[in-house]
């Protein structure tokens, strides 16, 4: 497929360079808000909106921002969009606003957004950058909705707020599902992500054994260190 077309960018973000499972970026919201699938979708779409808008604006401004102050400039752009989105959510979707809480303003420090601004939007024309933002955002949304769905199903027997597995009721002598509550609490987030990462490792190992190059753009090495590095590069220019 031709590079930098809108559809190529969408697929790249959703599958090839999926920010959560392939690049391992933005771990804080991934673990914090995935107590249910609905929260996952809400967080994912909010991040997508910020990512698409900031990618578009940064790409439009890429010839005007001096190289030395680009990191602070990116941060201001991202923080402005986060503030706008936060106000819109507070006004129109108060329930989602309440359940995501502190993690909405914290989208500012989500590595995915600054990472895409630095790696893609600051070097490419507006249209592909917009679709790069949408693709990455949808990839993120898809992954955290999956994690949220797994946690919700195991931890409460529900999916998107509907009871899927009938609960046991000892008083009525009814057999059923005993929810494993720990999966909704903090440790469950670590366990689910650990299992998903292990499954991914397993596939990579299999691919490596068959002699296929496991194209692993593990840019951040499981941490935001390299985003931090790009940050400090930006800082040093000042």
């Amino acid at each position, binding site marked *: 497929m031709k590079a930098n077309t809108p559809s190529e960018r969408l697929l790249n973000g959703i599958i090839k360079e999926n920010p959560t499972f392939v690049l*391992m970026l933005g*771990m*804080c919201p991934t*673990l*914090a808000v995935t107590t249910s699938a609905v929260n996952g979708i809400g967080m994912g779409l909010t991040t997508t909106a910020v990512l698409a808008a900031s990618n578009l604006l940064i790409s439009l401004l890429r010839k005007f921002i001096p190289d030395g102050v680009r*990191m*602070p400039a990116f*941060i*201001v752009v991202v*923080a*402005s969009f*986060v*503030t706008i989105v*936060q*106000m819109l959510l507070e006004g129109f979707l108060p329930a989602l606003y309440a359940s995501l809480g*502190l993690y909405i*303003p*914290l989208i*500012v*420090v989500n*590595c995915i957004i*600054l990472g895409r601004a630095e790696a893609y939007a600051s070097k490419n024309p507006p249209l592909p950058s917009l679709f790069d933002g949408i693709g990455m955002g949808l990839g993120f949304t898809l992954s955290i909705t999956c994690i949220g769905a797994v946690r919700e199903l195991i931890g409460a027997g529900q999916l998107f707020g509907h009871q899927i597995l009938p609960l046991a009721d000892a008083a009525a002598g009814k057999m059923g599902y005993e929810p494993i509550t*720990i999966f909704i*609490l*903090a*440790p*469950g*987030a*670590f*366990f689910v*992500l*650990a*299992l998903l*990462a*292990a*499954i991914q*490792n*397993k596939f990579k*190992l299999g691919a490596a054994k068959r002699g296929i190059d496991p194209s692993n753009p593990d840019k951040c*090495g*499981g*941490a*935001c*260190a390299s*985003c*931090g*590095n790009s*940050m*400090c590069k930006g*800082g*040093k220019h*000042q």
Partner: protein
Amino acid sequence: MKELMLIIVGSALVNNVVLSQFLGLCPFLGVSKKTETAAGMGGAVIFVITLSSFVTGVIYQFILVPAHMEYLQTIVFILVIAALVQFVEMFLKKAMPSLYQALGVYLPLITTNCAVLGVALINVQKEYNILQGTVNGFATAVGFTLSIIVMAGIREKIEYNDIPEAFRGFPIVLITAGLMAIAFFGFSGLI
């Protein structure tokens, strides 16, 4: 005084910033391979968070509230934190070279540590005054340091274990973090 003690115990142990609020997860997973580096990161985080929660508290109380611009808090806080980290780095380099040697590498990484911005926002959300906010920042950072050092200690031992191939690296670290989070549930009876 009793109130401040409650804030300290609450933020450092009960609502541990990494293990129950998932803030600052990136350095927690990234810089926890060795105990010394973990302690260095912890020291830098204590220093920066205490200072930044004081500065953001002052700016919020004396500039944003009188000007009725509370809605700008996210933008103002992140810029203040980024500038503060730069400033601290330059100051330490000139005034305290030995401390700079110990913390220097970790300082630039801290801007992207969501715990710093998180604490500033929590202070506003809980309506802490400047003293309470600074104490909360310090306690949160101590909680972070505690968990990252414990994590590094465990990871040094894990090196010698025979782990299933697929679980090596990132997955086993996450499972360790999950078990630590369960252990930290034990503190919830303290308050």
